[in-house]
């Protein structure tokens, strides 16, 4: 009988019996349930990076900020992302090298080389998200005198 037990064909045949099939499905289902719960209850995330919370926010008027921060919906590949800021007259604002926020790969931090003068600014961003997708956009904010 040991030869019979060792035969792989026999072992596989067990699955063939309908009950075993249901049991196997139920087992894999239970294993997946915990995974499912975790993914299902989490709020909707969006593949391809979306700009979710820029600071200062779009179309607002603020006192000259020391830095801009761009919060995205997913982690950003810093080495392949660019952000530029232009003043109302179209001149590019000199910026320090692009960096991500400490311990947060989803947020980019942009520091102007010199304090921003009053006026309207446009921020152009082009980023590569961790799933290697490119996305781009722009928004405006105003620095009050």
């Amino acid at each position, binding site marked *: 009988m040991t030869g019979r037990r060792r035969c792989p*064909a026999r072992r596989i045949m067990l*699955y063939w019996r309908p009950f075993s099939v249901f049991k196997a499905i139920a087992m894999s289902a239970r294993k*997946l349930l915990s995974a499912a719960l*975790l*993914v299902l209850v989490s709020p909707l995330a969006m593949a391809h990076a*979306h700009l979710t919370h820029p600071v200062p926010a779009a179309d607002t008027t603020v006192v000259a900020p020391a830095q801009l921060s761009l919060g995205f919906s*997913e982690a950003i*590949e810093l*080495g392949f992302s660019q952000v530029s800021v232009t003043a109302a007259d179209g001149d590019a604002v000199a910026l320090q090298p692009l960096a991500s926020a400490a311990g947060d790969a989803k947020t980019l931090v942009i520091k102007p080389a010199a304090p921003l003068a009053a006026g309207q600014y446009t921020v152009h961003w082009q980023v590569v998200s961790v799933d*290697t997708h490119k996305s781009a956009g722009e928004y405006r904010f105003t620095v009050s005198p």
Partner: protein
Amino acid sequence: MSVLIALRFLHFTSLMLVFGACMFRPLLLVHPSQVGRLRNLIDPLVCLLAALALISGVAWLFAVAYELGGSLDMALVRRVLAETFFGKVWTLHLFACVAVLVCLRLPHPKLQVVARPLSALALATLAPVGHAAMLEGAAGTWLVINQLIHLLCVGAWLGGLMLLMFVLARPGDQDLRMVLGRFSGVGCVLVAGMLITGLINTRALTGTFLPLPGQSGFATVLAIKLALVLAMLGLALWHRRQLARGPLDIHGFKRTVTLEWACGLGAVAAVALLGTLAPTPLT
């Protein structure tokens, strides 16, 4: 962009077929009448598929580098490999692809066994690349694991169907009913895993279990994919019923198994396109 879609399709398909063929070999091709064909036809074919997987994998890397940096020089490719998350995963992935190819190319029975976990590793390293990487923390890990199970189930299923087509083409004097029974039993578990993980993926990426076609390009392609999968499932259930009933109609089986396999490849093609689209519209 379209080059990347084609490469994704080629890479996914060849790697899945290699994995499935490696896994189902000991299950479907054990009869002595199959040994000759195994050596002359199926082994070289699987080896060729592994080579195709490696070539398309390297090409995929170059395509991504071109898309990110706009050029094709080695410095850029090295930067992609070293600096991005994709690159780090891809380094491991390409090593696994090379190892699979070497194992399949060298004619040694032990290496054929080693090729099985290696091809699983190659397929598994595809999981964290792409949309499944978008979440962070625990949910992100679970989504990648979910994607991993999905890939392994689909790969085993498609590769197994390919071997089944070979067996049906020239069954020799073996008991086909037993071979089909074995395949069908394992196939049930695979299909269940595939459907559950697929639904979890859909929910995580789009926010609903069934995004209505027409809402976005992603939803439309996803609906087409779902239709193909349901067709596959219907054929699989039909096969099971045929098997449980009276005598086998081998010619009919051959046709419908091929059709089922074609549906599967169509679904993979849809995935190749889905991976480049945004699940939720960019505003």
